């Protein structure tokens, strides 16, 4: 069994030190998962702790053979959906998270994600203007440096679907960023994937310098 899985089993058996160790290993990516998707950082700790709590309470939960990380992201996505439904009436009415975007719900990023550099801010805002599902996929790619198959695994989606969505969402993101930078004074070169990656790396650093989440296996 993987280290994460071992820790989770022990935690479920009542070893809170193991739970804490698991938390320390995984808290970064789960925090990052939520931070660009809510209006206020103050809401994040609750969501993070609910997610980890979900590891221990989920009925149809972890069977010991699946990745803990995948399990965590599944729970985090559910926690986020619930949060958004509760928080925003519109999200409740229109619970299609494939179409709904965070920017429409909360037009402002959490103030701690206010980026000093215009390009970086455009990048952060651009992510929030994607559909929530696409935003989740691209943030896993950019912030957690997950590869297509890993994302597919974490979100329980077919690999081909993820691949296609990444291509489409990246293009949209580039277009959105391009547009918002064009509106700002001073001309900008065409946004390419390398620029997006560079901004992503900067934003990642702003959110915390620890490494992307630990890999299973």
């Amino acid at each position, binding site marked *: 069994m993987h280290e994460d899985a071992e820790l989770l089993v022990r935690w479920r058996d009542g070893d809170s030190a193991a739970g804490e160790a698991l938390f320390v290993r995984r808290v970064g990516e789960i925090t990052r998962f939520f931070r660009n998707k809510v209006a206020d950082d103050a809401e994040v700790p609750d969501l993070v702790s609910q997610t980890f709590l979900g590891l221990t309470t989920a009925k149809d939960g972890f069977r010991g053979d699946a990745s803990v990380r995948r399990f965590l992201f599944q729970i985090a996505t559910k926690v986020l959906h619930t949060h958004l439904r509760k928080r925003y009436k519109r999200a409740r009415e229109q619970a299609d998270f494939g179409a709904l975007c965070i920017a429409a719900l909360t037009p402002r990023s959490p103030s701690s994600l206010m980026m000093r550099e215009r390009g970086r801010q455009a990048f952060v805002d651009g992510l929030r203007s994607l559909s929530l599902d696409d935003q989740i996929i691209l943030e896993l*790619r950019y912030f957690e*440096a997950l590869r297509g198959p890993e994302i597919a695994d974490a979100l329980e989606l077919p690999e081909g679907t993820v691949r296609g969505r990444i291509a489409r969402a990246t293009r949209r993101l580039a277009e959105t960023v391009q547009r918002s930078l064009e509106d700002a004074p001073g001309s900008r070169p065409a946004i390419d994937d390398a620029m997006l*990656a560079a901004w992503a790396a900067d934003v990642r650093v702003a959110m915390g310098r620890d490494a992307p989440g630990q890999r299973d296996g």
Partner: protein
Amino acid sequence: MFASPWAATRQGNAMAEPRSVHGGDLPFDEQWIRDQARAQLFGAAVPSTIGRFRVARRLGAGGMGTVYAAHDDALDRPVAIKLLHATGDPNANARLDAEARALASLAHPHVVAVHEVGTVRDDRFIVMELVDGSTLRTWQAEAGRPVASILHAYLQAGEGLAAAHRRGLIHRDFTPDNVLIDQDDARARVADFGLATEYDLPDEGPGAEPEASTQPGSSLSRTSRRHRGGTPAYMAPEQHRGLPASAASDQYAFCVSVFEALAGMRPADGGELPGGLPRRLHRALARGLDEDPTRRWPSLEPILDALRPRRRVLPWVALGSIGAAAALSLAIPSTPTCDPPHRSDDAAVLELRASFGAASDAAAGRTVSSALEAARAAHGDAVVRACTLAPKRTSAETEAARACLDEVERAHDALLARLRAPDARSRVSAPLLVEMLLPTARCNDDAALARWHPTPEQAWTDLLEAWIDLAALPVPPSAIEWTDARWKALTDDAAPASIRALALRVRAGRALRDGRAADAIGDLEACAAEAERVDLPALRIDALAALAYAVGQDRKRLNEAKQIASTAIAALDALGGHPVLRARVLHNLASVTARVRPPDYDAALARHDEAIAALEEAVGAKHPLTLRTNLGRHATRSRAGAPDPSLDATVAEVRAQWGDAHPTSAMALRIAGLAQLRRDDPKAAAETLRDAREATETRLGPEHPDLASDLYNEALALRALSRWSEAKVALQRGLHLHERTHGPEHPELIPWLTQLARTELALEDHEAATQTVRRALTLAELDGAAAKDFAKLRVLLAESLLPTDPITARVHATQAQTFLDDHAGFDALRRRARVVLDATSPGRPGSAAQSRSR
């Protein structure tokens, strides 16, 4: 467009940093989220620190940051820390620091104390007093809270807000959530001054419309979003429009809060004030809630007045829930005490300061307002002192002291009122005028009080206006009619002494402006004597400074002028304070020191520098007073042969500020032209000096004696350009003006005659040149001029005589040579003498012998 969607992923991997357990190097926010989540899950509150402070818990969060309860281990006290999100804008940080410093210096019982400001990573944090209690909103909502005590809490909060306004601090986000009520003593304290905005767009003028750009990602929308970080329900209309918040905006928010506390609803939501409130409170709130900030109260004070219970009547008792004990606690003790006078318009000083507006004038506004505040504070102290002295004084003495103090207060108010509507002229004069205020000291000094006589208010105000009128010409002078008869009435012996002193000073200023130095001297001497007699020390010193300038116009009286300026400095040292006046005296002393024989340039420049530094501090580098003083330094630098390259910029700024018709502009041009001449640019010099002369001519007319020196300078430039005929005309004109002023035998004419003779020589008019030099020689003999001057004139005469009378020419050249044999230097003169001697040496072709035979 994208080669492969996986490309960035690999890049992302490449950039990934080595694995680490969380902690260590995380941004504070990230660390805080993780700590909180961990605490929720495992119950272990992870202690974090901000700077040297140990964070105990989170108190709340807002748009601009998060507040934590923390402990200062160094000072062993609990503190509240507001961690602000990074702005990355160094200006914003500087402003935050400035504001925090101002707040830190504001110790007020109803303002949450700010201890210090710090930085952790890129984030600023503010360390404040930790108030153990609740917000005013929570507190006032508690069941059974008496209306009177709620109003009392708002009164306290309003006093805190007003105290901050007096320091020029704007809250920008006053709401009941930003007022804390101490659990122990129910004291209200205002928190979070100036933090509502991110300070990003301070220059956003009224024309800017931040709403215009709402594109996500555009820096403007982001900034404006931050900028209007106030609480919308309490924000004044102008803040909603994106305009900068002012004290009037705070007033609006304060009134919304009071209204809401009384009505249960905000006025915009259709709330209505309950019956039974005093009408004055209705009125106070209604005006404070005016949409137009200029129509609100000039300060919070009238509203606070309306919140204060009247002495006997307690109108709020009628409101019901108030208890007898609370009513008693509100009663104001009526035992007679010596309280400082209550002022309803302290904010007027603030307004005055704000009216100086532009950043370049901010320093002047600060200086003027703090001088007025200091004067008012001194007056308040004097009133208290007069009150405590009353039992020991006769009733007549007490009455005189009271009248004297009243007069001082009215004079302060009059000046304040005048300066609150600033124009180009009062802007220039204000920093000096506030140092000329009627002093309070004499009202409590028995000897001075015995000499005191009432000062007619109107005359005093009119004279100040006349003084202001002197400041700049481009603005039409005030409408007050100044007839000779009025001057006579104000300055004759029957006039009240203080009026007479001021009138003499102002009349002298007008004489100086119009180039009548002699008239000014008499008035200034009389003014200094009168001011000393009636205990107006600052006015006396200012008169002495002006006198030094006026006397120094006469080159022969420079030593006397220097003496007068030194007396003024000594008097000022004894008096203390008065930085602007001091700079003025130093400036005049420096100018005289640079012109006296022999000049002491080092001492002069040191004084210039001191004066300029003082003015830059007091009124800013671009203020007209600073510029004029700077001009004096340039003149001295040029004289000393070390012109400052910034001269052109100073001249341009002076002309922009005063307009070309003002004597200061003419002076600037003169200094610039002479500097151009010194650095061998006669073409530019001729133009500049012509401009200077024309400016003087426009101002004083073609026959004014002061025009002479401009003509002389212009002629020097024309000569350097070999434009001899024009130079000759200028010199003849100037000589004529000089003769009229000084008479035909004044030694002042010598340099004129010399230049004229040389010009005539250049035009080959030897006869005229000979006559002119002979006249100069005669004057030099009458004056007992120096040997070198004779030598110069003799060489010039020899040159003039050479074609017609070589024998006499040789005689004069030989005499000059005798002087030159004994003295080193004078190379040019030596060469010229040699030319004459060679040309007239016996035995040479064209020699003296041959000429004589002709």
